[in-house]
């Protein structure tokens, strides 16, 4: 097989990436625009970043977003890890396939439907929409991603390590904290980062379930853009993109490294 990059491969690679990332790149470049007009280049400047940090409303939205992301990602990590443990550990219990399917469903479910059904649910149980409803909605959305990441690690986990710990006198709970948890920790961290970034940039589900005082950054940006483009929004978006990129890249690196390490230990 020809493993070298041919002209055809390079061209399709460039076109593919350009299609995916050119608009984002454009947005990032214009966030350093000195001109107030969004579509006219007026020289390099970081003034909009300064303006952004002085914009009370945007900063507040960012703070809300961060809190929601941290909280929902933490809850999703705990629940998602428990689900992964149940799915890999308790053999073939009745309804396992159904359970697996139901955990993965939110990944492919249209966000509009997830958002709408959650809204109906919150209305039905008479929960005031605001900070907590968005947090809960994001937990629902991101839990399955944590499960996928942690489960793939647990599949390759050598059960005899846990048996060895128990054989040496550690009861099940201590075995979990002394042996299992440290070894699957990288995948849990990766799952957390994934959940965090997903919550950070979600617009659809958040806008369905938000209420007074719980305007997240994506909602804020979206509503401002409808009133007219401003370079400040470009700057805010650039920062958001940066955070999400860092989150996803670290999640990938962490889980990849832990897989490599577990493979090395197997030999």
């Amino acid at each position, binding site marked *: 097989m020809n493993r070298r990059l041919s002209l055809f491969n390079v061209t399709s690679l460039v076109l593919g990436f350009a299609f995916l990332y050119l608009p984002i790149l454009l947005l990032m470049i214009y966030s350093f625009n000195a001109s107030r007009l969004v579509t006219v280049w007026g020289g390099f400047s970081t003034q909009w970043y300064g303006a952004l940090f002085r914009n009370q409303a945007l900063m507040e939205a960012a703070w809300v977003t961060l809190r929601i992301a941290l909280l929902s990602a933490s809850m999703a990590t705990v629940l998602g890890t428990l689900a992964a443990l149940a799915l890999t550990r308790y053999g073939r219990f009745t309804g396992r396939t159904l359970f697996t399917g139901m955990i993965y469903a939110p990944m492919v479910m249209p966000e509009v439907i997830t958002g709408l059904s959650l809204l109906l649910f919150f209305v039905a149980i008479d929960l005031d929409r605001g900070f907590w409803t968005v947090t809960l909605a994001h937990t629902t959305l991101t839990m399955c991603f944590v499960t996928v990441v942690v489960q793939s690690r647990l599949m390759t986990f050598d059960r005899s390590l846990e048996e060895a710990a128990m054989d040496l006198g550690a009861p099940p709970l*201590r075995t979990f904290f002394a042996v299992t948890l440290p070894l699957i920790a990288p995948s849990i961290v990766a799952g957390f980062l994934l959940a965090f970034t997903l919550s950070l940039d979600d617009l659809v589900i958040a806008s369905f379930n938000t209420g007074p005082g719980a305007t997240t950054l994506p909602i804020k940006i979206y509503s401002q853009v409808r009133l007219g483009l401003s370079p400040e929004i470009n700057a805010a978006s650039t920062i958001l993109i940066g955070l999400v990129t860092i989150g996803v890249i670290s999640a990938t690196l962490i889980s990849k490294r832990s897989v490599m390490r577990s493979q090395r230990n197997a030999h």
Partner: protein
Amino acid sequence: MRRTFAPWTDPDAKPLIRFENVTKRFGDAMAVDHLSLDIFQGEFFCLLGPSGCGKTTLMRMLAGFEMPTEGRITLAGQDLSGVPPYRRPVNMMFQSYALFPHMSVEKNIAFGLKQDGMPKAEIADRVGEMLRLVQLEKLAKRYPSQLSGGQRQRVALARALAKKPKVLLLDEPLGALDKKLREETQFELMDIQHELGMTFVVVTHDQEEAMTMADRIAVMDHGRIVQVADPGEIYEQPKTRFIAEFVGDVNILEGHVMGQESGLWRVKTASAEVPLTIDDPDEVLHSGQAVAIAVRPEKMTIQREKPGPEAVNVLTGEVWDIGYLGDWTVYRVRLATGEILRVTRANVSRFVESPIDWDEQVYITFAPGAAVILAE
């Protein structure tokens, strides 16, 4: 000292481990089938059998990872039913070693001691003692991924020994080592066991390993124990054809009993013109019974010259294959019936004038006492 160690022959001796009519089923599959077995304090005991014979299940029941479906297991008189693995005075060395990859060698060895709440200074002493025992003092701070296979095996051994358990279980302890290292380690294990006076129970499918190390071997097949005896007895007086074939190499000649003459059995076979004469007085047989005669390859003699008229048990054939192993030469001889016998000869001198060659007509003989009769 080792030679006289045989508590199983003493009717008053109290066994350390007792399996009483133990059965283990996994769904419909019978892994262990109404098995009873006694193991004594200080024994080096081997469970030997092909994969799937139930030996690992038996060991896992002793460790507490599986519970018997029926029957019970006692350890030093205490019934182990319902006792979880972390409360049994038994430790196990796993086939995969199962070293904790996120802990250094020291921490691995100290793990079990920490669970017991041993004071820190005492833990350090014991860890040092264990490291000396397995000669790994210099590697205390290393992580398992930085060790060779042989070193990992030693860490696993040290970790399992650290708590000084009443019984040490070893699951295919040498399976992952190469041949040279395996042999050395076999003797090391025997020395350590002797030094500590601990009871070792080893699971293995390697008969050579079992023969070298064990005081007694239990040969298992289909969830049952077919014979428990010391290595010599297992090899020289196998109870069944399965054992004869599983432990070492063997030639099997099938035939029918003709009768007994002055204490020796006469057996008619298709392989020899004259009925064979076998000295196996313990067998109780009747005329016409179908039997298998088992003869070990090293107990057969191969020669080019026709034996004299007084010779018994003469088979004729031609050399089919010769394998030169250095210390031994293996001859595969094809009889007129198409059977192929395996005969080995020690290479006692360096040069042989006109050695037996391929396709040559040869005579194989064996003494009446060299063979065992196995009822079919």
